């Protein structure tokens, strides 16, 4: 069968069994060891049963893999307690993919990740929101997805409305919210639950200036409680302000790493952009 898989869990064979992972040092919240991710794209992504049957009758190899590309190659990194981790790189360098791997959305093709703590992803604003439901119900639903019970979430609801200033819209279905309100609610939920690890992807772009300032303060507040934050952004100034460490990705490979100022400056120099 050439439905090749990134991670194989075949019930009939355990020959591709991976060795037991070696733990990282105790202060590492997220550790990645040799994480690679391969995307296979097929000419016809919607491979059909009909076609499979025809292929089987004609003894053809199926389906042809159109392209096979490594979105991430041998990523090894450690994110420790108190790290504000910025990821920079050009479009298509694998930044968002890396974040999705950290959020457990994409299982790595090889290597492994070790987590210590609760991960709250803010990959895309309002992931898991149901537009038919009210703001309040969405807080419960989202909280449940992040691993909190209804009761725990009800206690946090006040704080969330306090922060977003959306209390008067609490019972309004989310589909009537503006995009800024949406963003605010999503950010407030993810940060109110106080995850040990918060992943943010470009999410500070929307929202007005006042909210962005508040959000930045809140991320700093999260750090004071010794959590880790991973931020992917093209806003170099914001990264310099909020992060202390960073890496640079190029075509799925880490090419630079260290204090955020150095990483950002090197990156800007290399693309011949003025420093910020």
């Amino acid at each position, binding site marked *: 069968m050439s439905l090749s898989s990134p991670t194989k869990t075949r019930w009939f064979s*355990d020959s591709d069994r991976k060795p037991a992972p070696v733990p990282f040092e105790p202060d590492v919240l997220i550790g990645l060891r040799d994480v690679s991710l391969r995307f296979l794209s097929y000419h016809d992504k919607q491979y059909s049963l009909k076609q499979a049957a025809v292929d089987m009758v004609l003894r053809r190899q199926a389906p042809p893999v159109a392209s096979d590309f490594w979105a991430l190659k041998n990523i090894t990194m450690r994110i420790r307690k108190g790290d504000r981790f910025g990821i920079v790189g050009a479009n298509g360098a694998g930044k968002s993919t890396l974040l999705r791997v950290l959020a457990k959305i994409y299982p790595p093709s090889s290597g492994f990740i070790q987590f*210590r703590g609760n991960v709250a992803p803010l990959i895309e604003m309002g992931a898991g929101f149901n537009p038919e439901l009210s703001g309040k119900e969405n807080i419960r639903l989202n909280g449940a997805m992040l691993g909190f019970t209804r009761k725990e979430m009800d206690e946090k609801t006040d704080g969330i409305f306090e922060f977003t200033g959306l209390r008067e819209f609490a019972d309004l279905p989310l589909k009537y919210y503006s995009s800024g309100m949406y963003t605010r609610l999503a950010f407030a939920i993810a940060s109110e639950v106080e995850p040990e690890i918060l992943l943010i992807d470009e999410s500070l772009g929307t929202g007005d200036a006042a909210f962005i300032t508040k959000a930045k303060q809140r991320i700093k507040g999260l750090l004071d409680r010794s959590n880790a934050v991973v931020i992917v952004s093209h806003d170099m100034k914001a990264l310099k302000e909020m992060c202390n460490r960073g890496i640079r990705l190029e075509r799925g490979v880490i090419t630079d790493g260290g204090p955020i100022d150095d990483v950002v400056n090197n990156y800007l120099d290399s693309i011949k952009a003025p420093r910020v």
Partner: protein
Amino acid sequence: MLPRLGDPHGTAKTMSQVSTSPASAPPVPPPHTEYFPAPAGPGIFRRWFEILAEDRRQLIRFWPVVQNMVSQELRVRYQRSVMGFLWTLLNPILMMTTLTLVFSQILDMRKEGYAIFLFAGMVPWTFLSGTINECAFCIISNEGLIRKIYLPKWIFPLTRVLINLVTFLLSMSALFFILGPLGARPTLPMLLLPVVVGLFAIFACGLGLAVSTANTFFRDCGHLVSVFLQAWYFLTPIIYEAKFLGAAQARLWLNPAYPFIKMFQTIIQDGLWPDLSTLAAAAGIASVSLGIGYVAFKSNEDKMVFRL
């Protein structure tokens, strides 16, 4: 020899030392540590045991999500219409009225309590076909969620099963009262209905898991499924009685849905206890279905996100 006999405690100590920590072993990680992907244990049985244990943990952790999704889906479905839940009853009532008229008046298959017979087979069947049809598309239609947030993927088929189960139970009890004037009476064997419904839901869940896996990789599967369900419907004695088939009746046992439907009909229409053998067959079929569905789903779970 002698020291071991004389000092059992000393032996136990050395044994435990040997088994837990050779000098070169890596430091033991703190309790919350979690690996992704989860390391595979040695051996197939061990591996599946670990997968099951992991899913049990996940089920507890994500049960509120399932609860939320089910209750909210039901609410969204019903809150906008004044008649709410009654609308879901309309469909089976109309269907049963039509079929009763066609069969008892036009085709002249007059039979005592045909409406109740029809009800006993039709409502469970609607649950089965609804679940399978919805499960077929549940992974694909939740693409947005799957690509943005981590959730165990079995949540989606499970939610579909539960939503349909709730609708099934509600319409079952409501229709039963509606059919009161036609001779529907509560009987003692109905105490067994929860067991039968439970087994039937497990059966539907297994099929749903298998179909949702298949449809994620082969996109035309969903359409085949609905055609297949139509054929299956006519092969199952729902609108006709089993004895109508004459000698071919024995072959009905090849139909995995037959024991379930038969039990529903025996309990609801005849008011009798079903055979123990039928119950055993249903239990066996349900567990085989769930087993196959679960293994198929879990074996392909990791690949699904790449195929959306």
